[in-house]
């Protein structure tokens, strides 16, 4: 079955072409929304089935299978193929991408049904799936890069989907450019790799790691990581992701939570055997991951935009994953990728459902003839939605439990494993730093639970605050309603997965402690063990259990605290109290550490001013001026010389005589 892997990649592309060309060329086709949506969804769902089939045909010890299609780029000693790789890592990613992707397609059919550019949206989505599959299935760095850039483009197109709004297209551009900064590093990393081993094929690289000097290994690792920071929104390149929420919510769910942003984690996991050779680079990854996690979490606490909170949460969770990677817990990171994909996608879709409802309210009010405008994403206008949107509420709540790390929900297992690995890394080199990172991670876990419940409680509990806050929106709750089933079905599926997803990676010691046997219940670990190079956990059972206990305590404590502060419409008061307590620190959080402003002042404006005021002027005045000056000088001499021509014959004769003297002198002497 693995030999049909290319079909997985191809079908979404076909879907894209059908919808894209059809929609572009035919007005009638654009109106066939059901058809369009179905085609798009099916062209993701079929690959999912194929992937599933392949997955079931594989074992944890299966050899990687590579389907080579054709030579892509070839010049001199460089050659790369379009070849897709099926191994334990890539099939997991492919399953997530197509599975979650298919659900979100389904969801979008409901969510986007009133949109004019329906066909375009689905075309883009399919293209995104195509690119993402290239990323995860490609057998060499350059094909991975094709996907890498491809998802960037789709992200660009989808963030700026409502291009009529300049801010949205700004966000799109910002996303793309920040991604490109990362890509720059990625490219250089590729060059370094190629120079060292002469190929970009995964197999060849990973089998020839000895060809790297430690220095090169370090740099390749760091550069790849920088690439990953761009795509996976880590410090210092994370600022695009919150802005990326300008796109339609399914997009946020699919691209900016479940799939694209995790490609950095995939990349580093793919090269885990290289990373373990360079502890310094690992440390850098861990530090950046840890910092990102806590920074984003603190910002998330202060946000009111429902999607922004989720966005910062995503950044924070991604930081968590990188922390895992940097600590040697590659499988843990992948585990979190998967669980995060479930619950974060569910959260986003849930928020989309809420926004959909709020939009509906706004729309209906407008229909009533009232000129009411409010931000449908601002949670301060919400509240009490649980009785109007039960499905949304329940799935949202389940996912919140998952992300908060409440035991038996999926996030609990994955997060716990990460914490364990970070602590474990503290046992080796750079122990203090890793311990500090562990501390930060625990704090982040606390904050995560806190802000997620803040979000959930403010949105769904208490009373619907819109009527009281916005004039003219009285009685607007009558317009609130649950989303259609195309939207709720995916919510339930994802919510279910968020609940049970964690069982694929239940730590072995949960059982072994008690049975003293060597039983392996951690399926994921077993599955991925062959492709990644996890560091060994050297912790004792006791330590492990203590860590689990700490995690549970933290999560429960944060949950309780959040309930106290935010249930029953106390949200704003609590936030004010929080602001008072933390003072300027809170201000820094709510200002998002002013990172955007810093970028603007330190890089963007200077570059722009340099270009506008210096280079452009330099170009016109100096470079071109020099050229003009040469011409001008010649003309100037010409106009000087012409005045020798006085018109008086005797002057001419005089010049003649000078010429005579000249010629005589030249010839005689």
């Amino acid at each position: 079955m693995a030999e049909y892997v290319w079909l997985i990649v191809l079908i979404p592309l076909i879907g894209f072409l059908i919808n894209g060309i059809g929609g572009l060329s035919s007005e009638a086709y654009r109106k066939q929304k059901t058809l369009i949506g179905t085609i798009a969804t099916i062209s993701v769902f079929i690959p999912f089935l194929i992937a599933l089939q392949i997955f079931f045909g594989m074992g944890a010890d299966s050899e990687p299978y590579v389907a080579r299609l054709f030579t892509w780029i070839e010049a001199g000693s460089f050659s790369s193929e379009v070849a897709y790789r099926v191994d334990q890592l890539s099939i997991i990613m492919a399953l997530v991408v197509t599975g979650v992707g298919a659900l979100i397609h389904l969801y979008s059919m409901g969510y986007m049904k009133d949109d004019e550019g329906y066909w375009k949206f689905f075309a883009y989505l399919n293209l995104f799936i195509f690119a993402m599959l290239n990323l995860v299935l490609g057998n060499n760095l350059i094909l991975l890069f094709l996907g890498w850039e491809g998802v960037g483009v789709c992200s660009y197109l989808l963030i700026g989907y409502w291009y009529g709004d300049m801010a949205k297209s700004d966000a799109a551009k910002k996303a793309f450019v920040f991604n490109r900064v990362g890509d720059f590093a990625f490219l250089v990393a590729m060059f370094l790799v190629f120079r060292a081993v002469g190929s970009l094929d995964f197999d060849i690289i990973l089998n020839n790691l000895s060809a790297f000097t430690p220095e090169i290994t370090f740099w390749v690792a760091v550069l790849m990581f920088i690439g990953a920071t761009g795509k996976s929104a880590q410090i210092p390149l994370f600022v695009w992701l919150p802005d990326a929420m300008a796109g339609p919510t399914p997009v946020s769910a699919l691209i900016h939570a479940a799939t694209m942003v995790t490609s950095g984690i995939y990349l580093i996991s793919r090269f885990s055997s290289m990373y373990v050779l360079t502890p310094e680079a690992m440390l850098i990854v861990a530090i950046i991951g840890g910092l990102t996690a806590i920074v984003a979490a603190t910002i998330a606490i202060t946000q009111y935009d429902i999607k922004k909170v989720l966005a910062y949460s995503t950044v924070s969770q991604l930081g968590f994953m990188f922390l895992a990677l940097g600590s040697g817990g590659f499988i843990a990171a992948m585990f979190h990728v998967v669980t995060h994909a479930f619950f974060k996608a569910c959260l986003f879709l849930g928020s989309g459902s809420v926004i959909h409802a709020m939009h509906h309210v706004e729309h209906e009010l407008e229909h009533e003839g009232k000129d009411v405008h409010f931000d449908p994403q601002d949670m301060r206008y919400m509240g009490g939605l649980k009785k109007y949107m039960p499905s949304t509420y329940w799935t949202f709540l389940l996912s919140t439990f998952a992300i908060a790390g409440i035991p038996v929900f999926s996030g609990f297992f994955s997060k716990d494993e990460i914490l364990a690995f970070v602590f474990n890394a503290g046992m080796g080199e750079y122990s203090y730093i890793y311990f500090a990172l562990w501390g930060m991670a625990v704090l982040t876990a606390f904050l995560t639970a806190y802000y997620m419940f803040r979000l959930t409680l403010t949105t769904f509990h208490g009373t619907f605050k819109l009527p009281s806050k916005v004039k003219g929106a009285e009685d607007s709750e009558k317009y609130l309603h649950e989303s259609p089933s195309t939207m709720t079905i995916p919510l339930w599926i994802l919510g279910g997965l968020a609940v049970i997803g964690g069982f694929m990676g239940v730590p072995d010691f949960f059982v072994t402690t008690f049975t003293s046997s060597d039983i392996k219940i951690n399926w994921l670990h077993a599955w991925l063990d062959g492709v990644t190079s996890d560091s060994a956990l050297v912790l004792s059972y006791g330590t492990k259990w203590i860590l689990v206990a700490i995690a549970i305590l933290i999560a429960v404590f944060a949950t309780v605290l959040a309930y106290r502060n935010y249930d029953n419409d106390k949200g704003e008061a609590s936030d004010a109290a929080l602001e008072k307590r933390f003072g300027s620190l809170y201000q820094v959080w709510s200002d998002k550490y002013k990172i955007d402003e810093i970028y603007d002042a330190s890089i963007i404006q200077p570059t722009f001013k340099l270009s506008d005021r210096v280079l452009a002027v330099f170009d016109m005045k100096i470079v071109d001026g020099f050229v003009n000056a040469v011409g001008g000088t010649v003309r100037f001499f010409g106009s000087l010389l012409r005045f020798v021509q006085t018109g008086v014959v005797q002057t001419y004769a005089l010049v003649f005589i000078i010429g005579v003297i000249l010629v005589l002198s030249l010839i005689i002497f």
Partner: protein
Amino acid sequence: MEILNDLLNYLPAAIVAVGGLVVMMMDGYKAKSRLIYQTTMFFLAGALVIATYDLLYQEVGTLFSDMAASGSTAAFGTFIVVFGTFFTVILTHDYLIGVKHNYPQVYPLLMFCTVGMIVLATANDLVTVFIGLETMSISLYALAGIIRDKQLGVESALKYFILGAFSTGFFLYGIALLYGATGSTNLSEIGAYTDGSMIYWGGVSMLLVAFFFKISAVPFHMWTPDVYTGSPTTITAYMSTASKTAAIVALVLILERALPYAADQITSTMAIIAIMTMVLGNTVAMVQDNVKRMLAYSSIAHVGYLLVGLAAGTDLGFTAVLYYLLAYSLMNIGAFGVVAYYEKNHDVHFNNIESYAGLGYKQPLMGILLSVFLLSLAGIPPLAGFIGKYLVFAAAVEAGLINLVIIGVLASAASAYFYLRVMVYLYFKESKEPVKLMKPLRVYSFSLVVLAVLTLYFGILPAGITELIASYFSGNGLAIVP
């Protein structure tokens, strides 16, 4: 009969001379101007046919007791001169009617002038050179001033005359000194001389001075812009091509036959003069607003390129120079012809470049023709001007004069500016006031088209003519004598 044979070999000159006398007599009997013109054309056509025949088949030799040469260079010079005159007369007739100064005496004068040119171009003795040169010059002095009731015309004639006569003094002095040094005025006998006394060098330099004057090389060029501007336009075309051709062919003959011994010194002198000529000609032309004056400076610049070829002094150099003369005659007569056409539609002062605005669209053919000629003058392939420049510079490169060539090409690049400028006005600007151009006479435009086609032809397929010219020099051992 030797004399008859000589005469047969000198037939173009003879025909033109007889023709000149005939039309002079016709003028005396008050024949119609048109008839005079037609007779002139008849004789010139005859001369042209024979000159063409001579060009292809005449054997190399000397005539009239070594006074004149036949074949090769001489035949080539004769051909260009007659060819140039032929077209000049066609253009002049129409032009003079246009500017209302169609004196019948112009035709005999042109014919006599042509005789002088042929004599000059075929001279094999300094005496013949002198007489030829003077016949040509004196006729040109008069021709420059034929628009005698306009100040500009006579002023140019006066300037030309004074400076021309002045240079004649130097020329004569040169001949005298050379005669004194070598004991002969015959070119080959002078060429046999290898003693190198001071008086020989003095003679050589004086001779060069006079030729530099005639071909208007800097700093002996001062008359050129004024005379070219003031003279009737078609006469300017004639002056700048036929007379220059005759003088340069004579110079080539002298350099080749009489002065191989002096080649080294001449090379350096020529190189310096060439640099001055190219630089001054091109830079000053850049700032001219009068098209005719611009073309005058451009013709100075072209002399600079010719001097580059002469400075090389090799077979290839002379070949290049002769080819260049042909190309230059074609394109310069053409360019002046179109300028004359524009001018006669208005008045004599209609030469300011501003007034060319938008003219390219009024009579498209004329605009295209002028563009072709100017582009050829600028040395843009695939026109004859390019091949000329290319050959000249190649010859200099072969002779190792790289620096000279670099300056030459840079000057040439600068020259593109002012040629293009004309086209800027012709095509890129709109005319401010409505200008009406009358349809050119068919023969007028036809002759210009012929010139343009030849310019193109010699640019694309120069092999035939260059082969012919190269055969004049190959094996003559003209390389620089150490």
